[in-house]
């Protein structure tokens, strides 16, 4: 087989490499989106719902 040009990244040219890494990053974005809604946003919602009754109690006072 012929020698591989040095400009290749992981054996791919830049256009293909961007697609390759872009696909992995897109999948990572999906995972982060899920984690955000499962963990961070959930915590935020819980904190908000805990604050709400306090407010109501204060209002009652």
């Amino acid at each position, binding site marked *: 087989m012929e020698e*591989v040009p040095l400009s290749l990244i992981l054996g*791919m*040219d830049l256009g*293909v490499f961007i697609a*390759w890494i*872009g696909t992995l990053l897109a*999948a990572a974005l*999906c995972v982060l989106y899920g984690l955000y809604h499962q963990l961070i946003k959930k915590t935020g919602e819980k904190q908000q719902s805990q604050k709400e009754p306090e407010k109501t109690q204060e209002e009652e006072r």
Partner: protein
Amino acid sequence: MDILFFVILMAIFATVFIFLGYLGYKKTKTAEDYFVAGRTMGALVIAFSYGATFISAVALIGFSGIASIYGHSILWLAFLNVFVGIFIAFVFYGLRTRKMGLSLKAMTLPELLGNRFNSVKLQQVSGLIIGVFMVAYTSAVFLAISSLFQVTFGIPYWVCVVIFTLVVGIYLIVGGLYAVMWTHAIQAIVMLIGMVILTVGVYAMLGGIGPAHEAAAALTPEMLTSIGSPAATQAPNGLTSMPSFLSQPFMMVLTIIFGVGIGVLAQPQLIIRYLTAKNEKALRLAVPYGGIFILLMTFTAFSIGPLCNVLMYQNNIMYPTKDVAGVMTANPDAVVPTIINELFPAWFILIFLFAILAAAMSTAAALFHTAGASIGRDVYEKSIKGQSSPQKSILITRIATFVIVIATLIISLNPLDVVAFMTAFFFGLMACTFLAPYTLMLYWKKTNRLGVWMGMLGGFLFTMAWYILIYFKTAPKIIGTPLLGDYMINMLDPIFIGLPLSFLLTILVSSITKQDTEEEIIMKRSFENI
């Protein structure tokens, strides 16, 4: 491989699915149960069902074969599949579609359009377009699986098609969308196992990611010619490089990538999955599952396609061919099956066969269900005067689905040409017809009935005219010589013009005409929860 062993496993596979069909039947009490699985589905089942519907045998066999010709540049499609097909689809379309579907009590895409714009005719016409063209797409799914069965076992095509249709037809017609989605979850797992082992196997044989890609990059046109690979001429810059800008291979890659990559947003069989979610959270959490699933399907399939050339070269295997009108031509659909048959152990051949079977069955079931609902519920039921009872509605759709299954069977027994292009044809047509009205319906309150009619019909007619008169794969078969001789125009997917045209028509007509009072009331109701 022992065919008896395969038959036994196939019987178990079929029995499980038919049993799930029975469970679905027991659970189906209302029209909502039959059409949108009672709107009770959780994140994992939605993601797997969406993925298994999206990724057919065409994507796994057809597109990895296409990648063996055009190289890793096809990975752009994998990027669009994950980013647009999952992230954009769920986050920007799924959540709003579910909310609007609930407000409008809609269970299909045509019903969503019809209810949103207060037009039964709109529902019927869009239902008819979906029903008719979905049959053609389903026949492409059958064709893909026949390649594998012919290469692996030499089982006659018609035997596969008949058995396959019977199994899918039974559990689908009996069990409705409950059965379809439960079977999808199982099928998706089988697909995952098959594709992961295949990918790991191919990369392991070639020494890992870097060495495998470098070996592919080092294949010269002469080496590719020696194994009869069409990549010698179609990937002139090498298998791991982008083709030259606006060259013929570049245009080919572009048309494949955008037809399917963007077209995914307007697929009626996928849109139904959003409507099955039990709550908003289920849809949001389906995003990571779906993203990983599609990554492990398309990214792997498109990565290994070009590497099959290296394996063929190293192992003195000739690129598979088929007889087309007495001339032996390259058969990309048989590339992956050939590599598996030649280089993988017998146990894996069985696993992969079931993975492909699962991919084909899951897509076919979803297509049959959507086409049946389109013809039964959207077209026929809406033409009957008076309100149908839920039982009658389900019965009508079951009969319509049965008719569609039989129609697909007949068409599939007279198979059409290369599978991947049938997918591109269907995806492109659905996108040009429905994506603009669907998007604007979700996001622009001024969208009105007339605008949607114009956008939908304008996109549809333009796309059909393009396929008949100009598009390089279809026009020569229909009119002999395409109207225009320039390859850059001939190879352009209609989505590049049809989609902007459809958007323009919908916006323009909606801007210069007004919603009537009834439409305005419905519009306000649709956006209440958004």
